[in-house]
C-alpha cells in the first residue's frame, strides 16, 4: 500500500505541475516540425552500446530530414506501465514511447494517445504486414506504427520426433495431424506439448481459439468466446489435458523448461527469443508452421511507437514515429534486436538466416492478442474458467459460458 500511496502522490504532484504547465499546449497544429522531442525506448537486447549506436543512426536519419532534436531515453522494462502513466499524468512524459498491443487500446480508449491518421497520407502503409497493423488501431483510428513483430509457432524436438516414428521433414500442420502425433508421443511416454496455464492466455487458449475460427470479443463489445468455434478450442485444450498430452501441472505451470530440456517433450511454442536459446542449448529442433484448424493463426506480439495526446510537440513526434518505422530504420532496428520487421520490404535482413527467415514468414498469421481496452482485465477471468475446466469441475461448454458471462459483467462495469 505504501508503494501505491507514493504512486498516487506522484500522480497528484503531476496534476499540480500539469496545471502550471497548461499554457504551453498552444504549440503547433499547423504542420511545422521543429523543437525538441523525447522518445522513450527500452533495452531490447543486452548490448547497450550496440543499441545506442543504432539509436544514434536512427535519430540522425530523422534530424537530417527535420529541424528538430531528439532525445532517446532508455527506460528499463520493469514497471514500465507505472512509469509511463506517472510521467504522462505529470505532463512531463515522453513525446513518443514504445507500446505493446494490450496497452494501446487501453490508453487509446482513455484518450491518452494521439490519433495518427492525419499524418499518414504520405506514408507507405501497404508495405506494413496486415497483422502488424491490427494492434495499432482502435475503433478504426490509428494510434501507432509498428516496428517489430514476433510469431510464435511450434518447435519440435527431432530426437523425440524420430523416437515416435515420425518424419521431422513432414511436420503436422492441422489439428488432426497434431492430435495423431500427440497420441503417438503419449504412447511412447513423452509429453506432446507444453501448455503453460499460469501464463498469459496469448500462449494458451487464444491461438487455439483463433485457429478454430473463434474470437474472444469484438471491438464493439460483442462477446464471442462461447460460440461454437470458441467451445471447440476449450474442448481441444480439455482433451489435451485429459489424455495426458500436456504435463499434469499444466493448469498453473509457468514453464516446462525442465521437461523440454530433458528431451521428454515433443513440441513447444516458441519465437525468435526461443530460437537463440535453442541454438545455444545444442538441442536438435525443427520449426513447423503455425497450426491450422479453420484458419491458420498464431500469437505474436507487435511493438509500436505511439504519441501521447499531451505531447507538447505532436508534429515532430508523429514524424518521428513515421521515420523510426520506415523500411530503412526497421532494418536497422531489427538487425540489432533480431525481432521480425513489421514491414514486408525490411524482412530481407533475414535472407541468409535460415530459421529467422522461416519465422518471419509466419508473422502474417500472428495476431497480437485481444485488442480491447478491457483485454487485460478479462484475461484472468478466462484463465480461471479454463483452469476450472481442466480441474474437471466444468465441461468445456460450461466453462466457455461462464467466461462469457464474466466478460460481459466486466464490460458492463
Amino acid at each position: 500500500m505504501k508503494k501505491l500511496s507514493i504512486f498516487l502522490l506522484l500522480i497528484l504532484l503531476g496534476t499540480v505541475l500539469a496545471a502550471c504547465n497548461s499554457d504551453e499546449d498552444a504549440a503547433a497544429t499547423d504542420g511545422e516540425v521543429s523543437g525538441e522531442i523525447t522518445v522513450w525506448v527500452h533495452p531490447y537486447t543486452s548490448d547497450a552500446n550496440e543499441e545506442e549506436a543504432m539509436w544514434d543512426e536512427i535519430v540522425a536519419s530523422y534530424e537530417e530530414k527535420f529541424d528538430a532534436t531528439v532525445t532517446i531515453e532508455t527506460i528499463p522494462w520493469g514497471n514500465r506501465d507505472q512509469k509511463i502513466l506517472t510521467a504522462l499524468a505529470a505532463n512531463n512524459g515522453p513525446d513518443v514511447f514504445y507500446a505493446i498491443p494490450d496497452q494501446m487500446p487501453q490508453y487509446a480508449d482513455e484518450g491518452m494517445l494521439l490519433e495518427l491518421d492525419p499524418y499518414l497520407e504520405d506514408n507507405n502503409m501497404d508495405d506494413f504486414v496486415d497483422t502488424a497493423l491490427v494492434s495499432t488501431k482502435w475503433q478504426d483510428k490509428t494510434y501507432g506504427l509498428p516496428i517489430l513483430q514476433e510469431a510464435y509457432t511450434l518447435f519440435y524436438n527431432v530426437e523425440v520426433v524420430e523416437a515416435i516414428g515420425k518424419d521431422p521433414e513432414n511436420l503436422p500442420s492441422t489439428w488432426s495431424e497434431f492430435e495423431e502425433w500427440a497420441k503417438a508421443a503419449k504412447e511412447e511416454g513423452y509429453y506432446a506439448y507444453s501448455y503453460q496455464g499460469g501464463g498469459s492466455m496469448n500462449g494458451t487458449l487464444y491461438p487455439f481459439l483463433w485457429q478454430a475460427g473463434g474470437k474472444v470479443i469484438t471491438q464493439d463489445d460483442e462477446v464471442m468466446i462461447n460460440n461454437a468455434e470458441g467451445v471447440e478450442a476449450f474442448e481441444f485444450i480439455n482433451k489435451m489435458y485429459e489424455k495426458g498430452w500436456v504435463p499434469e501441472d499444466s493448469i498453473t505451470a509457468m514453464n516446462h523448461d525442465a521437461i523440454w530440456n530433458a528431451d521428454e517433450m515433443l513440441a513447444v511454442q516458441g519465437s525468435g527469443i526461443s530460437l537463440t536459446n535453442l541454438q545455444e542449448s545444442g538441442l536438435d529442433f525443427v520449426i513447423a508452421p503455425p497450426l491450422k484448424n479453420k484458419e491458420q493463426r498464431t500469437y505474436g506480439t507487435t511493438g509500436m511507437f505511439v504519441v501521447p495526446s499531451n505531447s507538447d510537440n505532436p508534429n515532430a513526434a508523429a514524424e518521428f514515429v513515421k521515420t523510426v518505422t520506415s523500411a530503412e530504420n526497421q532494418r536497422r532496428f531489427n538487425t540489432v534486436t533480431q525481432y521480425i520487421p513489421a514491414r514486408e520490404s525490411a524482412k530481407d535482413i533475414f535472407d541468409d538466416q535460415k530459421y529467422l527467415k522461416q519465422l518471419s514468414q509466419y508473422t502474417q498469421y500472428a495476431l497480437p492478442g485481444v485488442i480491447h481496452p478491457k483485454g487485460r482485465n478479462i484475461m484472468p477471468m478466462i484463465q480461471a474458467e479454463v483452469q476450472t475446466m481442466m480441474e474437471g469441475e466444468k465441461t468445456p461448454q460450461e466453462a466457455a459460458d461462464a467466461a462469457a458471462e464474466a466478460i460481459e459483467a466486466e464490460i458492463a462495469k
Partner: protein
Amino acid sequence: MITLNNADKINEEIESHNKGKIPLKDRIKRNKGNNSNSNKPKLPLKERVKKQWDRNAIVYIFLVPTLLHFIVFQVFPFAFSFVLTFLDWKVIGDPEFVGLKHWIAFMNDGLAWKAIWNTVLFSIYYIVPTMSLGLILALIINSGVKASGLFKGIFFLPVVTSFVIIAGIWGWLFRGTESGMVNYVLSFFGIDTQLFLADSDQALMVLAGLSIFKVAGSTMIYYFAGLQSVDKQLYEAARIDGASPLRIFWTITFPLLKPIHFYVAIITTIGSFQIFDSTFLLTGGGPNYSTTTIVFYLYQQGFAGLNLSYAAVLSYVLFFIILVISLIQRKYLGQESNHY
C-alpha cells in the same frame, strides 16, 4: 503503519540523545510526572508553547526533515488515496466524482470477497506455523548445541536470499509432474503424483509453505533475542524445584516471551495480509482464483486494469482489516506482561 512505528522510534532516539544519560526508567517516571503536573496549573497556550519550545527547540528542529518526509510521502498519499476512492480517475484528463460507486461495487464484487477469504486462509496456514517454527529454531540455537552459529546462519539464509530465487526453487521442488522433486520423494511412500500448485485445494498451502520457509528465519531471530533476555535465575530455581524441561518451557519460557509473541504476531499478520509476490511469481492467482489474494487482486485491478480508484478502495479495505486485527491482537496479547 510500519513506517509510523519507525517514525516513533526515530523520535524516541532523537529525544533520548537530547536528554543525555538519564536512565530510561527515570525518564519515563519523569515524563509521567510532567504530564500529571501540567494538568494542574493551566498556563495560557501561548506560554505553554513557548515553554515547550525553550526546552525542546533542538528536538523540533531535528524532527522537521523527518516530519516533512512523513507528511509528504505518508500522510498525504494516504489521505489522497481516500479521496481517490470517490473519483473515477483517468490518468490523463479530469477525474469525475462518482460518490460511493466503487465502494458499492466492492460490496457486490464476489471476487474481491474471495480474495479476502483466500488471504484469511493464507494467514491461517502461515502465521502460527511461522511463529512456532521460528520459536523451535530459536530454542535449537539457544540450547547451546555445537556450532550454533552455523545453524543460525543456515536458518537465516532464506531471509537474506532474494524472494524470486527462493520462489523459483520452491516452484521447482513442488512441480506437479511425476519428475517433480517432492513428488519423486512421495512416490517412495506410495503416494500418487500430487498437482500442488495446479490444484486449487493445495496451491495456497504450498504458497504458505514458501512464506513460512522464507520468514521463519527472521522470527527465529526475534525469539532468540527474547530467549536471551529471560532471567536465568528463573530456570535455576525451577530446576532446583525439580521441574521437567517441558514444564519449564510452558511455565517460564513461553509466558515470558509474550512481548515477542505479540510483536511477531503483528509482523507476520501484516505480512500475510500483504502477500503478493509468491502468487505473482508462481501461480498467477490460479487455479480458478484459489491463490488470488487481496493484494494480488488490487495489483491486477490497479496496474493491469488501470482501475486505480477501485484499487484504492481495495487498499482501504486491506488497511481496515489489518488495523482491526492489530487492535484485537493488541487487546489480547499486548498488555504489559506481569508474570512473576
